[in-house]
């Protein structure tokens, strides 16, 4: 505990120039940036951005049709029954080990929010999403996004999220640019990201 006091004392003495009456709110933060803005149709924009990341996109195709014949898919708690007709399903109950997850063919989830401008899908562990490992270890992620879950900008998305939940923001399949700055899809996360927009 000694270092806690040492560091806080160092901070306070380093800030000797800050008037003792000043509060954080006295430090002005200009908020002239845009919360949202006009632009192309949300779905169109979202699809464009997803394709840019080389994700596979489906519009208004029944989920079960996309999920059938894809091998064994992890299905988190809260997944609607109509997505699953004829699908070979694995459940996380009791919880699977990482190695067991690695042997599955893919994972089928919903999401919490999606950001059109950046082509981002956000999972928060809510219904049809499950714990974070479920969408990480299997090599194929099929994610369902409802139109009303799509917002245009990052600020709009943050406003809809609950900070106490764990979040995973996904923008395209796993990728790296570490070799000569060439972007290559597919390193440790799912190498295929498929998005079904309903």
């Amino acid at each position, binding site marked *: 505990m000694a270092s806690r006091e040492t560091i806080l004392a160092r901070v306070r003495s380093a800030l000797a120039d800050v008037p003792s009456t000043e509060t954080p709110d006295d430090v002005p933060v200009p908020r002239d940036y845009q919360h949202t*803005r006009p632009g192309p149709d949300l779905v169109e924009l979202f699809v464009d951005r997803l394709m840019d990341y080389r994700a596979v996109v489906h519009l208004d195709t029944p989920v079960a049709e996309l999920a059938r014949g894809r091998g064994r898919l992890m299905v988190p708690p809260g997944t609607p029954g109509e997505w699953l007709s004829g699908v070979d399903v694995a459940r996380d109950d009791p919880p699977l080990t990482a190695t067991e997850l690695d042997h599955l063919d893919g994972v089928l989830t919903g999401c919490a929010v999606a950001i059109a401008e950046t082509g981002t899908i956000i999972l928060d562990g809510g219904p049809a999403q499950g714990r974070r490992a479920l969408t990480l270890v299997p090599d194929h992620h099929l994610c369902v996004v409802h139109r009303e879950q799509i917002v245009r900008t990052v600020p709009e998305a943050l406003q809809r999220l609950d900070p106490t939940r*764990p979040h995973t*923001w996904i923008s395209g399949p796993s990728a790296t640019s570490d070799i000569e700055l060439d972007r290559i899809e597919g390193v440790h996360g799912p190498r295929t990201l498929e998005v079904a927009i309903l």
Partner: protein
Amino acid sequence: MSSTFVGMPSFPKAASRAVGNAQLRHNLHKATHTIRDKRAAAVAEQPDWDDLRAAGAALKNRVLRHLDLYLEQLEEAVQRAGGHVHWAADAAEANRIVLSLVRATGETEVVKVKSMATQEIGLNEALAEEGITAYETDLAELIVQLGDDLPSHILVPAIHRNRAEIREIFQRAMASWGRPAPADLTDDPRALAEAARLHLRERFLSAKVGISGANFAVAETGTLVVLESEGNGRMCLTLPETLISVVGIEKLVPTWQDLEVFMQLLPRSSTGERMNPYTSMWTGATEGQEFHLVLLDNGRTKVLADTVGRQALRCIRCSACLNVCPVYERAGGHAYGSVYPGPIGAILTPQLRGFGSELDESLPYASTLCGACYDVCPVAINIPEVLLDLRAKVAASGAHKGEKLAMAAARRVLSSPGLLGASQRTAGRFRKLTPRRLPGPLSAWTDTRDIPAPPPQSFRDWWASREEK
């Protein structure tokens, strides 16, 4: 990794060696130009970039001016969410804390997400001394670790290596760290990435302890944020039973909603993408995991005490300043002798470490003051301003004795018209004898400049003779 930045020569010495390496210069030129073009396009697409930049700078100022308050707020929020908070005054203490936490798990191996803070404190080396192996999992960090090399860029630590060199490193070293590289490995980046995936897969799935840094820590909620691309971050943050995050005390942002500014600034400025492939955000102990946050000072409060240099603590480690710097592009990252290279390193390293060495005293001079770094900085750090301030401090500290002697002599001559005239006439008389290069320590000046030949007659003498006529 046995390589270390300790005992590096001064910047000009290390840089002149790097500039002589044609392969390195080629790799760096290609990489920095590729990424700066990508960044420019991503920034141009964001219509309110300048407003975001102003907000980002102001939010960081708010945090820094009230850092004690925000640190206590963060600590409380993390503890409320079931996490443990530790405070480390310096590198040695941070390493001791992490070591004891790892020991408590009984494990001898840990997986790591790329983290500047843990590189800064030499965590891997400290753990290795105690028999604990830290496996780097970011592709570029893996290349550096397998190559027994040093990072040379904040975002792309192996930027100095090309694909052929990477293939060679993988073939030579993967076997001694774990799963060997495939026998038929080519230098196709796809094949190299696949080799890294296979090499690390088992390790991720069986890891019990993960170690990370954080890009942001939200004081209000206790939320930590890690941005990445490959999924190695998610693996290290999600799968292990114990997670230890080492975070510099300057990484705080006030509120959850404030992330809206930084989640727009960082990806576009860093990798030049609209958004990086993966971002993880978690608050305290998550999904049954044990979570430890280690708050690191290690010189940051010294930087905070300097009212000019303080702005360096706004840095969000995007590395845009490296990619536009004409000095970095030619000298490369190693010459800066620190995990923080480039313009931001030139102001951060000597402030964090103090002017204790020839290297640290030379860093504020590793710049042409062109100002490109300031232009691209997403939190508007005025790097040239801090460089000049640090130069003044180096000069005041008693360095540059020869230069000061010469300046004192010049002051005497220039303030006396008689002395000035006499020395000008003497120089003019012996102008044929002016050497091209100066001898001894003065040769450092003529290595890159010609001595101007003195004119046969000074302006004053010419003016006087004109009036006589």
